[in-house]
């Protein structure tokens, strides 16, 4: 469907002049237009949703107002129902650039707190996932007994026990980074296990037979055949795992009165009705997710290129 529809556009492109048609044939222009439409719709909704409160203000003060006044004032409220995009970006600019990164009021400080527990949890989860996958691939009893539970555990809302894990670990004396990181570990290790089991099993029987004719040991087969062929699967799982690690770190910051991190920022914002603060924390989280996934994606391409597997 997509290819057949895109083909005429691409074929027609060289005849027309230049950049615009090439943009239209690729993904850039459609994305820009869709994003622009979303921004416009956002402004519309911001005016509409903030209108009732603003009308109340006008009525109490008895001012006469025009539509232009209404639009200007609804987009500049202190605590809007839906802040306008420029308010959110002004807040982000104020809390990232104009405040020292070490200050508690800096969004970068909170993002760093969340990022550090995300990364620690992600690293632990990846390590654990790979180890478990290696055991599962090499032991039949392990495969039959553990694998169904790994799959079943995906259906369980693990995030729901995040607050409990934090409380329990705090009671044991573990505080700070590690409890949050353990939630990220727990979340990120499942995609890695599932992906790596699939990847380590991906060599064809004929390739495994070839290794046997070379009388390769299990370790040699693993390092020279199974591990390299699992790489594409590993990176695909890592992308899912890093995104879910971030979610785990944010949710881990919600309970028990955490004072730092994007999750704590969300919770504080919701207690005090600071919608602009909530939205800027959300945008920061989105930016973090995008950066993390992009870094993994770059690693993916680099490894595949070095292995000669790039398409």
């Amino acid at each position: 469907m997509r290819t057949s529809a895109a083909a005429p556009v691409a074929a027609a492109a060289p005849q027309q002049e230049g950049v615009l048609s090439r943009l239209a044939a690729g993904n850039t222009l459609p994305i820009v237009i869709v994003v622009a439409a979303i921004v416009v719709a956002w402004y519309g909704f911001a005016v509409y949703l903030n209108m009732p409160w603003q009308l109340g203000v006008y009525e109490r003060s008895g001012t006469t107002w025009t539509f232009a006044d209404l639009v200007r004032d609804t987009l500049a409220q202190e605590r809007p129902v839906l802040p306008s995009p420029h308010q959110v970006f002004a807040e982000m600019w104020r809390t990232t650039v104009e405040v020292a990164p070490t200050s508690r009021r800096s969004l970068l400080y909170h993002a760093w707190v969340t990022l550090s527990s995300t990364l620690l949890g992600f690293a632990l989860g990846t390590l654990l996932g790979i180890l478990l996958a290696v055991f599962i691939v090499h032991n039949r009893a392990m495969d039959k007994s553990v694998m169904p539970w790994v799959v079943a555990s995906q259906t369980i809302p693990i995030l729901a026990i995040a607050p409990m894990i934090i409380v329990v670990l705090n009671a044991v004396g573990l505080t700070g980074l590690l409890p949050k990181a353990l939630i990220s570990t727990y979340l990120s290790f499942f995609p890695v296990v599932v992906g790596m089991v699939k990847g380590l099993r991906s060599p064809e029987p004929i390739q495994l037979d070839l290794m046997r004719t070379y009388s390769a040991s299990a370790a040699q087969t693993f390092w020279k055949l199974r591990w390299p062929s699992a790489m594409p699967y590993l990176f695909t799982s890592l992308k899912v795992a890093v995104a879910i690690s971030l979610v785990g770190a944010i949710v881990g910051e919600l309970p028990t009165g955490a004072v730092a991190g994007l999750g704590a920022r969300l919770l504080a914002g919701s207690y005090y009705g600071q919608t602009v603060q909530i939205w800027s924390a959300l945008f920061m989280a989105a930016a973090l997710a995008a950066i993390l996934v992009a870094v993994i994606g770059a690693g993916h391409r680099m490894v595949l290129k070095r292995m000669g597997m790039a398409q």
Partner: protein
Amino acid sequence: MTNPFILALLFWIAAWALNEWLVRLSPRPAAMRRLIDVLVPLVFGVAVLAMWEGVVRGFAIPSVLLPPPSMIWARIVNSVPILWADFRQTFLKAVLIGYVLGCGAGFLVAILIDRSPFLQRGLLPLGNFVSALPIIGIAPIMVMWFGFDWPSKAAVVIIMTFFPMLVNTVQGLAASSAIDRDLMRTYAAGYWQTLFKLRLPAAAPFIFNALKINSTLALIGAIVAEFFGTPIVGMGFRISTEVGRMNVDMVWAEIAVAALAGSVFYGVVALAERAVTFWHPSVRGG
């Protein structure tokens, strides 16, 4: 007086030996093989529970930290009405309504943009991007907009389930092969006929993939959204308040209910998938 931990350890070793023996059997009848495939994980699960019980009792871990499974079970049996009320509030209202609306909306939008390659190229990368974002963070905003009761939770669920459904359906609609579509053209089938008789059935595995992903996401979304404010009922509410009161056994009971609900939900979707996509190689086992 034997240490319960030693007993549990012995039980663990015995269970593991049993499993090693079971997986080496390869009985002729298919029914027996199926039975073994079910039995092995069950034995493992029971062994984990026994180990849990043994560790907690053997090392006298205070039940505030980690209650033994027997205590959690006793709590479940004793507080069925509370658990049922929470289940009804969170699962039957927020999760199911949000799930149906979110998946339905994602599906309909995918059908709508199906005829416009331009919109597809604009929306698909965005949908993929949004799927990687921590959408759960919009929970406090939804609570502000739609109040403390279940509609705000359903709204979170709708947004969380919308994008996976959109992306998967669009990919699925592109999954039918060119030769099949050419055949439909030679039959002079219209757009809608091709859609219903060829492309939607071909998209079914993708759609069910999204339905399965969403069944987990929906439960997570509803429970976490309750951390931001609820009436005094609901699974997320119960978990966060009972943690505060150090009633850890109640928290675990609630988690057990959530786990059961999540697994059954997933299982129902998987069964529906088997019934609908009976022709697919992964279901036929070929």
